[in-house]
């Protein structure tokens, strides 16, 4: 590890200075091994065969033919696979998604659901055999038609209640000088991390070992132990390097199938999802339809706020994209109503995807705010500043540090917002119309109980062990810096080991809570170890080890509104004759707690903002109503932003050390995407005078809108 920042860093201030990644050299030389890359003697390869109907029953599988193909070792399906149980509550407080409990029955809940696993000596043999497997179905009519007025929609509680409300909405809207009432839609979006899900399972000395790509070894161990009715101590999950997760890498069909096959064959079995399979087996963000109603006084103060969101889930598991939750934090109003509803369709179960709820919710709310600013004739930054709540709009709880105004002001200053002409459609650069837009952002800050150990070695070095996951966040490096400071030594003397469930229970890399939760546990263990060492006793050859558990400390946190905040600014260029939209520059200013490693933190913020660009302009999984499956389920059909789509972007932060955390951390993984798509969409309006309320803002939509605008002789809606 090298220190990038200039200047001298005292041994006790590793946190806050830029460090290249601990594992960086391994990653640039190809030495870093990911889940599907650990060699095993006698490894067999499993390939999933997926359903080609969206709903029905498996009538027959012609497995005999497949079993006779070269290299084929076994075919697992609902008739012969080991049984699993789904009657439990997992680490995250929810029952397991039954779509992960494969091969237990003949029912097909969605297209692309595993109906069999073919295991063979080589991956080529397994693939051909799985694709040759003939399956007969009793097909039933399916419904994959997600629409705002679906009659079967119902409210569903999640981490928060489905519905909140105060005040008389109709009365306040009627009394408002300015009213905005709009519907927004966001499409089905997929995580599309670069490393496909991969797991190798084997039994070793009576223990089940799974080499996996996941966001939390503790989580996966718990789920597998429950599913297979095993003592958690007899299951070990390791994930040294993880090629991206974004919410998708928990327990999924491939791990379950790999364990089944390893159990049946008593040899190591690897199952890797193909990119196409990921579109039906790796989770996704539900599409949403959202309605936002805002009513304001002449000076822009909100009297009425209503945000209603509908998302979809599978027929067998409840998951809700709580898009209406964002208003519960961001803005108050005399009448304040939010509702999250869901509809069950014959589709795979959606899941958490980077800023679940906040990403689509902030698009609708912050785009509606922009329209309200236009209605009121008030600058969008000023409108937000005028609506800063004094306490939690729904909870009534105090804010534990709300530095949104500082983000807005600093962002506006650096972006040059003050010089902005508010009129839309009046700036041109050749064929391009130019515009700027902004949005505000928040994402919850939290911590979850974790355990860690810190060991002092006789040679003066230290080892810290925690079942953390570095899915690209830089967690391994950040935790090294945190541990060094807590131990009072230079980071070079600390080795942090992660990604192994044998290190004890720990929080997952999710909810922007990983690094904070793990740092808390490491700080506690290291602090106690330091005290022990201060007593002056000799260190034995095996070292001195201290274990921490933050359950009690985190449970004692006083209730408060704890969040990270951000202000997003974007400039876009739009060619209305071709529909092309290009982001020209972007700036995000964040208040996200103490920044442990500026080098990698900037990457986290920028990555989130790039997700926002991608969400605003590119991403959309197209579901074919006739078959119930996707059309173009690959990275040529599902567009994520390329290099060429991403201009120079800046992310920076203001001092926001959280007094409620031992290291001052909040969390940075998700705040970068929140509001980013709205900033881009608002800029597209400023460029063209057309509001785009349906994402992504595709060329055909821009073209259609500009035609409408031309024919109606003025501004238009898309």
């Amino acid at each position, binding site marked *: 590890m090298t220190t990038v920042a200039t200047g001298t860093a005292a041994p006790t201030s590793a946190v806050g200075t830029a460090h290249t990644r601990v594992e960086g050299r391994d990653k640039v030389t190809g030495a870093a091994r*990911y889940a599907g890359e650990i060699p095993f003697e006698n490894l067999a390869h499993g390939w999933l065969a997926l359903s080609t109907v969206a709903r029905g029953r498996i009538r027959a599988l012609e497995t005999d033919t497949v079993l006779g193909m070269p290299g084929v070792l076994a075919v697992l399906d609902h008739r012969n696979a080991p049984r699993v149980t789904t009657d439990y509550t997992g680490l995250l407080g929810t029952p397991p998604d039954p779509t992960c409990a494969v091969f237990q029955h003949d029912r097909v809940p969605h297209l692309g659901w595993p109906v069999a696993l073919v295991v063979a000596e080589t991956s080529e043999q397994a693939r051909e055999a799985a694709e040759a497997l003939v399956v007969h179905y009793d097909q039933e009519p399916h419904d994959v038609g997600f629409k705002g007025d679906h009659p079967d929609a119902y409210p569903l509680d999640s981490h928060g209640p489905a519905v909140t409300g105060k005040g008389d909405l109709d009365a306040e809207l009627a009394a408002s000088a300015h009213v905005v009432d709009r519907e927004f839609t966001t499409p089905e979006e997929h995580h599309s991390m670069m490393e496909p899900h991969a797991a190798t399972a084997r039994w070793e000395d009576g223990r089940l070992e799974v080499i996996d790509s996941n966001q939390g070894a503790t989580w996966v161990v718990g789920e597998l132990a429950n599913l297979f009715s095993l003592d958690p101590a007899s299951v070990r999950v390791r994930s040294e390097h993880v090629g991206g997760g974004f919410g998708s890498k928990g327990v999924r069909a491939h791990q379950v199938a790999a364990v089944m096959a390893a159990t049946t064959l008593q040899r190591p079995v690897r199952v890797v999802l193909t990119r196409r399979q990921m579109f039906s087996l790796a989770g996704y963000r539900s599409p949403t339809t959202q309605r936002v109603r805002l009513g304001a006084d002449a000076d822009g103060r909100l009297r009425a706020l209503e945000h209603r969101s509908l998302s979809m889930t599978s027929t067998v598991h409840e998951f809700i994209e709580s898009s209406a939750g964002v208003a519960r934090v961001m803005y108050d109003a005399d009448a304040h109503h939010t509702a999250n509803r869901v509809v069950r369709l014959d589709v795979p179960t959606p899941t958490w995807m980077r800023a679940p709820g906040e990403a689509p919710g902030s698009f609708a709310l912050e785009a509606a705010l922009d329209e309200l600013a236009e209605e009121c004739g008030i600058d969008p930054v000023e409108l937000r500043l005028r609506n800063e709540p004094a306490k939690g709009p729904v909870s009534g709880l105090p804010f534990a540090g709300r530095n949104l105004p500082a983000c807005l002001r600093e962002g506006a200053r*650096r972006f040059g917002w003050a010089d902005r002409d508010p009129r839309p459609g009046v700036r041109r650069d050749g064929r391009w119309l130019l515009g700027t837009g902004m949005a505000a952002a928040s994402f919850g800050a939290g911590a979850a109980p974790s355990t860690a150990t810190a060991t002092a070695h006789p040679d003066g070095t230290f080892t810290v062990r925690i079942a953390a996951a570095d899915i690209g966040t830089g967690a391994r490096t950040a935790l090294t810096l945190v541990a060094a400071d807590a131990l009072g030594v230079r980071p070079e003397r600390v080795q942090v080991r992660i990604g192994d469930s044998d290190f004890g229970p720990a929080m997952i890399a999710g909810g922007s809570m990983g690094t904070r939760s793990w740092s808390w546990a490491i700080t506690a263990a290291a602090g106690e170890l330091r005290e022990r060492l201060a007593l002056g006793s000799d260190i034995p050859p095996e070292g001195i080890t201290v274990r921490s558990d933050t359950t009690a400390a985190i449970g004692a946190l006083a209730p408060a509104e704890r969040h990270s905040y951000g202000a997003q600014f974007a400039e876009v260029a739009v060619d209305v004759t071709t529909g092309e939209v290009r982001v020209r520059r972007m700036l995000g200013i964040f208040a996200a707690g103490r920044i442990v490693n500026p080098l990698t933190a900037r990457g986290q913020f920028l990555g989130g903002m790039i997700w926002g660009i991608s969400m605003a302009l590119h991403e959309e999984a197209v579901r074919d109503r006739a078959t119930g499956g996707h059309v173009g389920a690959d990275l040529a059909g599902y567009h994520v932003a390329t290099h060429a789509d991403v201009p*120079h972007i800046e992310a920076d932060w203001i001092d926001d050390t959280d007094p409620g955390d031992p290291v001052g951390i909040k969390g940075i993984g998700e705040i970068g995407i929140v509001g980013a798509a709205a900033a881009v969409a608002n800029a597209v309006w400023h460029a063209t005078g057309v509001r785009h309320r349906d994402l992504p803002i595709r060329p055909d939509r821009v073209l259609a809108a500009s035609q409408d605008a031309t024919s109606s002789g003025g501004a238009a809606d898309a």
Partner: protein
Amino acid sequence: MSALATRKKLLMALSTSSVITLKINGEKHTLPVDHRTTLLDALRERLDLTGTKKGCDQGQCGACTVLLDGRRGVACLQLAVAAEGREITTVEGLADGERLHPVQQAFLDLDGFQCGYCTPGQICSAIGAIEEHAAGWPSAVTDDVRPEAGPPPLSADEIRERMSGNLCRCGAYNSIVQAVARAAGAASGTDPVPGASVHGVTDSKETVA
């Protein structure tokens, strides 16, 4: 053609597997392969060279980029049997002992990655792209492709277009562009990207306004 070669060809036509010799990072590897085996799978599953990554297996992400006879290509669409006789360079073959290739060093120093899974492909692609540019190849954003116009300066936009075959879902694009610019500058003995085209390639904290 020697009798041995003729006989080998005949066998390959009838058989669905062959014994082949691949030259990878200067070393020869002789192995039997199923004809279906891609170069990517041969590297990863047969030769324990797992630095080359499988992101999509369909030529749609660039994670498996390697150098074939010195030029960048995707290993997932290259059949191993058809790669016999070609010089293959993977990410494992770039460093000179402990000394990283300048592109690797720039990625490391400037944090040109997050999860690291697209990184070997980005690095191999960057090496190829820098050489293509040095050879005077235009790109889709080159204003005037006629040879009389001369090679375009390696601006940030040129780097972005040339690197667009490598997706990075973590969104490390900004620092990757900086790393490529720095390495290209080092390779040509000039400043990292001449001043006129340096706009947008900076790690400074100055305003973007």
